[in-house]
């Protein structure tokens, strides 16, 4: 995605925001959602990033949005993840963040980053 946005001439600040938001969402999908799928749609004025997983879902979204709140397993924490900054970072870098989640079915994170 970064390479493509660079080719398109998107400002480096916007690319950085998109890259960080996407990275955080991917890491979440890997740690909690047992992997998933990323769909990136580029518009002339923004980029839409959708990260879809079929993991356990998020029981309490408000709680998950709080800085420092984490349910990451020890194995993930040992590797330096799970600081509870994933969702807060996504909210910080994306202009719009939607979380569509159902316990037991999975989570779809949709983010828009304006250029």
């Amino acid at each position, binding site marked *: 995605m970064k390479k493509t946005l*660079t080719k*398109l*001439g998107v400002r*480096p600040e916007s*690319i950085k925001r998109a890259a*960080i938001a996407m990275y955080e969402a991917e890491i979440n999908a890997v740690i909690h959602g047992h992997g998933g799928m990323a769909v990136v749609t580029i518009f*002339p004025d923004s980029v839409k990033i959708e990260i879809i997983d079929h993991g356990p879902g998020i029981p309490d979204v408000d709680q998950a949005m709080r800085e420092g709140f984490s349910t990451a397993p020890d194995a993930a924490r040992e590797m330096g993840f799970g600081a509870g*900054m994933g969702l807060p970072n996504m909210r910080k870098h994306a202009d719009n963040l939607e979380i569509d989640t159902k316990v037991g079915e999975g989570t779809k994170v949709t983010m828009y980053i304006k250029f």
Partner: protein
Amino acid sequence: MGKLHSVALNRDLCVGCTNCIKGCPTEAIRVREGKASIDEKRCIDCGECIRICPHHAKGAVTDQLPDLAKPHPGILYSVLIPPSFYAQFGTAVSRPMLIKALYSLGFDYVYEVALGAAASSLRTRELLEEKRRLAESLPPEEISTVFPMISSACPVVVRLIQMKFKALIPHLVPLDAPMEITARFARADIAAKNNLTPDKIINYFISPCPSKRSAALNPLGQKKSDVDFVLGMHEVYPAILNILEHMKENNGITSSLRDDRYADYNGIQWAAAGGEAQTLGTDKYMAVDGIHNVISILEEIENEHLSDIEFVEPSCCFGGCIGGPLAVANPFAARVRMRNVIRNAREEQENSPEKYLDPETMTPHLWDVPLPENNSMRLDEDIGTALGKYNKMEEILATLPGLDCGACGAPTCAALAEDIVQGNALETDCIIKLKEHIRKVAREINTLDL
């Protein structure tokens, strides 16, 4: 050849073999009509093509050694020697001998660029300290806006960042290069000693790479360079070797500068990869050499994965400047020699500190011209148009064989697709596509009922 670059092609020697297009880190070379051509907007003067070309068709544009034997009243010539030069000769050749050899060549003054490097080390330490204080006031997730600092000593790295890693421009050490610091000092020093105006002093720099000549022609972060001419190390080497041969019986030389002002050993260290970082008083540093490794580390920094490191020293060439494309010595041998040179420099300085110039004497300048971004990688000025081109590119790419063979003259199938979209190539430049096309035409001819 424009004024921007110092890597050039000798068309007579080029056989159109495509070796160079593959190694170019910015995809700046294409082979068209049997000859390579360099896109000046994309070239960062790294010299990879000079190294790779088996036919020696790629070379560096450098200036000629002046005729120093001719009387030149009212004008004084100085030569600035980078520390990497010391690693080009055997261990029997000492710094004083080399400096003497350069005087023998006819230069009026010799200055070690390590003088400017040592001064830059001191100033960079201060900048690092400022960054540290700034970082302390920031929340942890914003440290990555400050650290790591990135060395700007290698002009190739600076140009690469201007083109491909624009977000990292604020991370660069905003100081003029050791070559510039030394040249400015030399000009003022000689002018004062000889009661001349500064314009009567002509500074020559002996370069291990083409990029430093480009940096003298098009200074980075400053309006004007104090380096007037740049000589290729490989071109000065034979003359120096010749002089050294005749000096052999006289190798008791311990001092040769006009007035014993050798550079601090910290400045000498800069010649080898990681040498600059080692002078900064931090162990949170990373040295990375080789242009392709540099690219992957800059990506890591851009992804904010290296903010626990304070200083990154990227060198375009393996081993640092001693591995420059215009250096003569085998780069591995040069590493061993450089270690010797540094050890000797340190010992000599401890024994006779009075012979060494205090780095505080020189003042590195902060960049006063903002570094412009280089947008030559983008598809179009308008994002909407660029998107259209990108989609077209993807469509074309899907029909290309994906061999990345380079026979079309572009380094990869993706690069060919881009060239087609930009109107600089045709689909039938791809030989696989051409073959398909011919087969189809042949079939059609066969079915004609004549």
